[in-house]
C-alpha cells in the first residue's frame, strides 16, 4: 500500500498516528533515524525506512533500543537532528543511557518517541506508564492526541529539544499511535545529514567535580524555562460552561470531547500537551474557580495526583475525580469513559451499556474462538513439534519475546513464562542452577542479537550443565512487521551487508552448536538428541525463513510455493492425533462429508513447508501435481 507521507504541502491525507510522526520528523528536517522495532511504535520506523533514501536522511535498525538511542544521540551531538522510536519496554532498555544524557544535553534536536500499550494489544509483559521516566530523568515530555497533533508535536519536539539542548520524549499510547485521522501536511524543512562533533570538556566531563551538580542544576533550570515558555503553547483550555472542569491528555481527550457531546454537556476542558514539566500555573488557573475536576488519563494517576497537590493551595475545597471512577487497568475508549462520566455528572446517554453487553454476551457464548496460532508453514511450529518429541512435556521451557511466544498456547504450551527481551537465558540459567530439571530456553534471532548474547556468555562463564538454548532463526524480526536484524544480511535502508551468523557468535561465546533446518524434522530431532546428551552451554540454531517472508519473496519473483494434499484418508487417519491435533497447521482442516469425517489441506492456506508430509504415514500426503 503506497504511503502518503511524502505528499505535498497543504494536502489533506489520512495517516496513522505513527505515520504522522514520521511525516513530522521529515518536515522537521530529521537527518538520522535509529530504531529497534517495537509495537505500538513500529510504524514510525516502517514509514521512515521506506522513504529514507528518497528524502536523504540516514536510517538504521539498530540491534536494540539502547544502541538506537545512543546512535541517535551521537548524531545529535554532531549537530544532526535525530529521532529514535520505541515501545515502553524499549525505553526500559534504553533508559540506562537516556537518563545520563539529560545531564549532558544535545546540540541538534533529539526526539525519543515512546509508545505505551495499555491493554497490551502488542505487549506481553505489563501495562507500563512511561510518563514516570520523564519525571525520573527530568526530561521534557509532550503528548499528542490525534494524528494531526502527532505531526505538529513532532516538529515542535525538535524545536524544543534544540532550543534547550535537551533530549525530549514524544509519548503516545496505543490508540494515538494506531488510529488514523485527517492530517494537513506542512512544509518540509531542508535536512542536514552531515555534522561535526566538537570536543567540549566543559559539557561532557561529568567526572570532574562539582560538574555533576552543576549539570544537574542546569537541567532543573532548563525544565523550569520549558514550562514557562511552552506551557501555554502545549496546554490548551477549551472553554465551556459550569463549575465542573475536565483535565485530560492524549487520546483520552478525543474520547472526552465526544462523550460530553453525547451526554449533552459543554464543560470546560484542559488538555495537557506538556506532560513534563507539568505546569503549576496552568493547572492553578484552570482549577481555581471550579467545584469539581474530573481527570481522565489512561494508566497511572499522574495528572490527578498533581491536581490534588496543587489544589491544596489554590482551591482546598475542590473535589477531584479520576481513578475513583476510571480504571488504572486497561485502555480507555468511549464505553469505558461514558459510564464514569454518567456517574459523576448524573446524566445518562440513553443506551443501557450493561443490558447491551448482557445481550451481546448471550449471542457470543457458543461461538468457536479464534485463538492466536502460528501461520501455515511457520518454522516455529515445526521446531516446537520436534522439541516436544525429544524433550516431552516435563522439561522447563523458558520463553522469550517474539512470534514464538505463541508457543505458550495449545497445542504446544511450551513457553512456561515470558518476561523480557533475552530473559529466557538468565531465567533458565537460574532454574537449572538450583534444580535437576531439564531446561530449554527458546529465543529468536532478533531477540538473541538484542539481549541474548550476554545471557549466553554467562552460561559459558557460570553454568557447567546449562539449559539448552534453541535459537529460532527465521532471519527477520517477524512479529513487528519483518524488519531486518544483524542476521538478515540487509540494513534498514536496503543495503546488502554480511549477515552475522548466530552459530558463529554462539561458538565464539563458548557454546557447543548444532544447526538444523527448521523444515526438516529428521535434522531437528537428530541435533536435539545429540545436544540432549551433552552438558554445558549448548545451542541449537533452528534455521527456517519466516514463511510469510518466503511467500512474499516468491510472489514477487512470480514463483508459486508448492501445495500439499492428503491423498490417502485411511493412511492419514492412522496418525491423525499427531498431525491434526498436535501439529495443528491451520491449512489442515476437518470436514464432514456425507456423515464421514475427512481431512483436507486447504490449497489457499498451504504454504508448502512439507512438514506435515514428513510426520504423516508415508504416502498419505503428497505435493499437489496439478498446481500451476
Amino acid at each position: 500500500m503506497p504511503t502518503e507521507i511524502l505528499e505535498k504541502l497543504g494536502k489533506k491525507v489520512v495517516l496513522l498516528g505513527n505515520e504522522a510522526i514520521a511525516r513530522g520528523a521529515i518536515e522537521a528536517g530529521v537527518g538520522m533515524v535509529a530504531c529497534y522495532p517495537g509495537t505500538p511504535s513500529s510504524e514510525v520506523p516502517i514509514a521512515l525506512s521506506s522513504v529514507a533514501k528518497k528524502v536523504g536522511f540516514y536510517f538504521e535498525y539498530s540491534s536494540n533500543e539502547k544502541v538506537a538511542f545512543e546512535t541517535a544521540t551521537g548524531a545529535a551531538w554532531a549537530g544532526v537532528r535525530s529521532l529514535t522510536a520505541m515501545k515502553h519496554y524499549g525505553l526500559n532498555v534504553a533508559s540506562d543511557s537516556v537518563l545520563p544524557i539529560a545531564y549532558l544535553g544535545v546540540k541538534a534536536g533529539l526526539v525519543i518517541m515512546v509508545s505505551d500499550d495499555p491493554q497490551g494489544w502488542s505487549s506481553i509483559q505489563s501495562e507500563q506508564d512511561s510518563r514516570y521516566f520523564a519525571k525520573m530523568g527530568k526530561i521534557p515530555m509532550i503528548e499528542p492526541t490525534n494524528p494531526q497533533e502527532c505531526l505538529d508535536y513532532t516538529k515542535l519536539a525538535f524545536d524544543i529539544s534544540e532550543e534547550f539542548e535537551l533530549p525530549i520524549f514524544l509519548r503516545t499510547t496505543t490508540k494515538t499511535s494506531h488510529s488514523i485521522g485527517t492530517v494537513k501536511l506542512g512544509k518540509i524543512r531542508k535536512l542536514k545529514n552531515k555534522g561535526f562533533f566538537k570536543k567540549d570538556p566543559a559539557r561532557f566531563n561529568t567526572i570532574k567535580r562539582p560538574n555533576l551538580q552543576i549539570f544537574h542544576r542546569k537541567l532543573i533550570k532548563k525544565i523550569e524555562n520549558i514550562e514557562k515558555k511552552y506551557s501555554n503553547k502545549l496546554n490548551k483550555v477549551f472553554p465551556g460552561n459550569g463549575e465542573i472542569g475536565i483535565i485530560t491528555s492524549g487520546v483520552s481527550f478525543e474520547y472526552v470531547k465526544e462523550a460530553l457531546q453525547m451526554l449533552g454537556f459543554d464543560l470546560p476542558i484542559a488538555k495537557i500537551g506538556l506532560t513534563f514539566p507539568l505546569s503549576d500555573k496552568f493547572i492553578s488557573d484552570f482549577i481555581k474557580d471550579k467545584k469539581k475536576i474530573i481527570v481522565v488519563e489512561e494508566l497511572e494517576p499522574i495528572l490527578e495526583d498533581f491536581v490534588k497537590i496543587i489544589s491544596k493551595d489554590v482551591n482546598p475545597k475542590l473535589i477531584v475525580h479520576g481513578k475513583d471512577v476510571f480504571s488504572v487497568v486497561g485502555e480507555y475508549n468511549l464505553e469505558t469513559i461514558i459510564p464514569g462520566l454518567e456517574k459523576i455528572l448524573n446524566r445518562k446517554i440513553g443506551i443501557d451499556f450493561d443490558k447491551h453487553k448482557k445481550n451481546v454476551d448471550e449471542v457470543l457464548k457458543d461461538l468457536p474462538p479464534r485463538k492466536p496460532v502460528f501461520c501455515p508453514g511457520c518454522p516455529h511450529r515445526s521446531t516446537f513439534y520436534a522439541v516436544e518429541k525429544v524433550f516431552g512435556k516435563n522439561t522447563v521451557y523458558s520463553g522469550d519475546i517474539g512470534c514464538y511466544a505463541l508457543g505458550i498456547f495449545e497445542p504446544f504450551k511450551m513457553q512456561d513464562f515470558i518476561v523480557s527481551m533475552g530473559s529466557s537465558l538468565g531465567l533458565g540459567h537460574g532454574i537449572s542452577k538450583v534444580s535437576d530439571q531439564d531446561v530449554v530456553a527458546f529465543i529468536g534471532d532478533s531477540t538473541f542479537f538484542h539481549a541474548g548474547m550476554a545471557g549466553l556468555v554467562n552460561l559459558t562463564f557460570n553454568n557447567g550443565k546449562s539449559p539448552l538454548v534453541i535459537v529460532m532463526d527465521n532471519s527477520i524480526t517477524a512479529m513487528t512487521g519483518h524488519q531486518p536484524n544483524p542476521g538478515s544480511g540487509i540494513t534498514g535502508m536496503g543495503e546488502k551487508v554480511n549477515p552475522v551468523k548466530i552459530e558463529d557468535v554462539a561458538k565464539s561465546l563458548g557454546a557447543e552448536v548444532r544447526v538444523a533446518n527448521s523444515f526438516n524434522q529428521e535434522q531437528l530431532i537428530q541435533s536435539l538428541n545429540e545436544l540432549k546428551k551433552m552438558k554445558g552451554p549448548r545451542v541449537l540454531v533452528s534455521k527456517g525463513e519466516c514463511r510469510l517472508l518466503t511467500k512474499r519473496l516468491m510472489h514477487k519473483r512470480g514463483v508459486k510455493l508448492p501445495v500439499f494434499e492428503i491423498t490417502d484418508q485411511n493412511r492419514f487417519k492412522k496418525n491423525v492425533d499427531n498431525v491434526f491435533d498436535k501439529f495443528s497447521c491451520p491449512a489442515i482442516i476437518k470436514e464432514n462429508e456425507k456423515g464421514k469425517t475427512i481431512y483436507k489441506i486447504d490449497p489457499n492456506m498451504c504454504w508448502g513447508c512439507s512438514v506435515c508430509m514428513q510426520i504423516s504415514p508415508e504416502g498419505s500426503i503428497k505435493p499437489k501435481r496439478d498446481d500451476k
Partner: protein
Amino acid sequence: MKFDLMLTGVGGEGVLTTGVIIARAANIEGYYVRGVQLHGLAQRGGTIPTFVRFGDEKEISSPGIMQANSDLILSFEPLEAVRATFYARKEKTTFIINNHPYIPIYANLDKIPYPDLKKILKKVKPFAKDIHVFDTNNLAKKEFSDVIFGNTILVGIAVGKGLLPLKEESVREAIKITVPRGVEKNLKAFDLGLKIGKSS
C-alpha cells in the same frame, strides 16, 4: 454528518486495506476521517475489527466507534458478524455479510462447532436493522480467480445499495492510490459490486 462504519473479518483477508480505501475515499470527498484497527498478537487467523468514521470534524474525535453505534457493518466473514454485534443495535445498524466461513483452527478441538448461516443470522438479527448476505469470495474466485477481490466487491455492493454514503468516483480514486498493483481487477470488482448492489 457523522458516519460510523465497522469492517470486520479475519487477519490476512485484507480488511485493513479495504478500510484504508474507504478512509481515503472519504478524505477525497473532504470529510474529516478518524478510525482505528483493533489488532492483537495474531498475525493471521485472528479477529480484526476495524473502524472508519467520517463526517463533520466537530462531531467526530474518538478513533473507535461506541458500542451499539455503527451505521454499517461490513463483515468479510459470517462468524465475525456475530462478534461485531457489540457495536450494533436494531434501530441503527445494517449488516452486509460475506458468506464465506473461515473456520477457526480449534473449532473442532474445542468441540464448539462453527455455526451454520441460519444460526448466525438468528444471532445477528436482534442487533440489526437490516442484513444482506452475499458470497463475494466465490464471485471473486469465479471472476478474477482470487478470493481477495471479494472485499472490493463487498464495498461496491455497499455503495451500490446506498448504504455507504460515498461517491463511486471517490472510491475509484482511492482504489487507484491504495492498490496500484491490482488496480484493474479491483476497479472491475468494485463495478461488479455496484451492479449487484444496485440491482438487489
